[in-house]
């Protein structure tokens, strides 16, 4: 069967695996977006900039403080999450009662400002960041760099833990309840505004974590987030806005689809996700895993 489409099975397995690796980044970023949209009803356009800040955080930790990659994996998302929470407290909070559009405009503007500041300071061509896990394993059908294997495993763990916390624990049920009826939950003595701040911080932290993971593989540059964010939004739309599991499954799934496109028709690899988005929107406007509200 494989010979029919003109590609050896080995090459195909390799590309499937690569697709999963790419999908890991999509999944983590769209997961953060889905959490923020699902619980705060804010379309967080700053997500790409926060991903970029995560990567720069790793670079700064290494070059200014001497903290290696493994430390940065914890420090950088926490710092970026705190910055995110300050933004939520001081700016985003004022827009909850208005249309989605205002939140979108605010976060988009913030993204441009953050990007501009980083470009001013560090230039547009980016900074070097070494690979913490050099070398790799020959799987027979492809050479798998150790670092890429680590990225897939780490992101799967993070995604599943997040899904479990939100859908299967008491804390998660508070969160979901607070989005449905904040007044009622507040009446039960739960501090809803603080919970929302922490949720936003968590979503932003996920973006920053993806950024730290990206630093050794991709160029650490001010525009790395804006290049990726549009694709990630398409992933969220395909999965269904606000659906946690939808974001994870479509993230990995679309990574694989994109990977295969890179073999059969590379010129289309940057557009294939949007074609799928258009089709999904026509057939099921709420997204593959979404439910109409």
């Amino acid at each position, binding site marked *: 069967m494989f010979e029919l489409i003109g590609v050896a099975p080995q090459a195909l397995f390799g590309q499937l695996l690569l697709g999963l690796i790419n999908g890991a980044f999509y999944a983590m970023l769209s997961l953060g977006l889905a959490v923020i949209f699902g619980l705060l009803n804010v379309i967080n356009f700053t997500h790409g900039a926060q991903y970029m800040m995560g990567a720069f955080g790793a670079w700064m930790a290494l070059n200014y403080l001497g903290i290696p990659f493994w430390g940065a994996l914890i420090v950088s998302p926490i710092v970026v999450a705190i910055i995110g929470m300050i933004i939520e407290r001081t700016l985003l909070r004022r827009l909850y009662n208005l249309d989605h559009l205002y939140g979108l405009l605010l976060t988009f503007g913030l993204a441009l400002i953050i990007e501009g500041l980083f470009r001013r300071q560090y230039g547009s*061509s980016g900074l070097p960041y070494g690979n913490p896990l050099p070398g790799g394993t020959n799987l027979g059908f492809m050479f798998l760099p150790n670092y890429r294997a680590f990225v897939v495993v780490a992101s799967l763990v993070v995604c599943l833990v997040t899904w479990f916390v939100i859908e299967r624990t008491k804390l998660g049920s508070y969160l979901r309840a607070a989005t449905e009826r904040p007044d009622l939950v507040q009446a039960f003595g739960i501090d809803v505004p603080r919970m929302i701040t922490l949720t936003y911080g968590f979503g932003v932290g996920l973006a920053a974590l993806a950024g730290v993971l990206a630093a050794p593989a*991709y160029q650490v540059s001010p525009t790395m987030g804006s290049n990726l964010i549009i694709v990630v939004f398409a992933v969220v739309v395909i999965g269904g806005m606000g659906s946690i599991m939808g974001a994870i499954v479509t993230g990995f799934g679309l990574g694989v689809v994109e990977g295969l496109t890179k073999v059969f028709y*590379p010129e289309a*690899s940057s*557009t294939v996700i949007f074609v799928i988005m258009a089709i999904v929107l026509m057939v099921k406007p709420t997204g593959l895993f979404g439910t109409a509200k």
Partner: protein
Amino acid sequence: MRFTAMLMAAASVFAVSAAHAQTPVKVKIGVLNDQSGLYADLGGQGSVWAAKKAVSDFNAASKGLQVEVVFADHQNKADVGTSIARQWYDVDGVDLIVDTPNSGVALAVSQVTKEKNKVFINSGAATSDLTGKACSPNTVHWTYDTWALANGTGKAMTKNGGDTWFFLTADYAFGHALERDTSEVVKANGGKVVGNVRVPLNNADFSSFLLQAQSSKAKVIGLANAGGDTINSIKQAAEYGIVEGGQKLAGLLIFLTDVHSLGLKTAQGLNLTSAWYWDMTDANRAFAKEFSAANGGKFPTDVMAGVYSGVTHYLKAVEATKSAKDGAAVVAEMKKIPTDDKLFGKGEVRADGRQIHPMYLFEVKKPSESKGPYDYYTLKATIPANEAFRPLDQGDCPLVKKT
């Protein structure tokens, strides 16, 4: 504006007090390039500084020229670039546009410049079509082009045993031109192109393409891309052990700022072709030192040096013609007088608008060999001026009379 007014006042006072007491020839230079995107580091504000430096080194005021330098961001969009060019030429009285990286924007601005009979000196763009099919009596291409890059890196690697090639090509005008020119060089030197893949611009992950290149078993993987795309492909090639596996990477267009961004640990051993490097002569080092002091410790690229050199030669031509208004006449003068300045040395501007100078083949140093900031290259070979660029009769430029 107030500063400009003061300059103008000062210049006019100077002109009046000068012995010949003529009204000065007004010249306005516009630096049009990427100020904020992926090519901002290789040109950007550095090119603006270089243009201003050329004006002050030329002592324009004492030679009866009153020069003003302005700049704008074309955002790598041809429509933005042409509308700025039109505004500058029609309303703001700009006589010369310089720099303009991004082949797509450059070809469009060259067209507008011809229509308005002004002057366009390109330093940052790569396509050899600017002095080939699309050449113009108003355009001079200064620093490098795809043919020169292919002829430098492509020839050297093919001759050193890299006789089978696989291309990773950026899927737009520049990538296609670079792949075409390099393929021709490879074939002319007895090599073979075994495959290629066209990658959309601004692609972050090259794993899939690198794996295709790896399984092609080609000895050389040619990177016909630029900026972030080149950086990501080199970085990820290291991850997949491509160089360790015996294949060689040929970065066909690599700037000093790209090497800086990659870090020597990843970039070491790369071969590249460039028109200018700061650590070659005392004059270059002095220029770099002054540049660095004025630009927060950054070092100048070949594109910025080309802007300096191009503006210097332009001012000489305007001094000779005594007017900047007729662009074609100024360019004709630029072609008539030989070029000579402290950064690019002696050379000439050919009939097709190509500036001719030597090109240099460099190898990126190991981290242990680098002694200071931006000490990145070792000179491997010098390609003499008469071999560095496409022969005049092979470019299909209509300005060149066929014999």
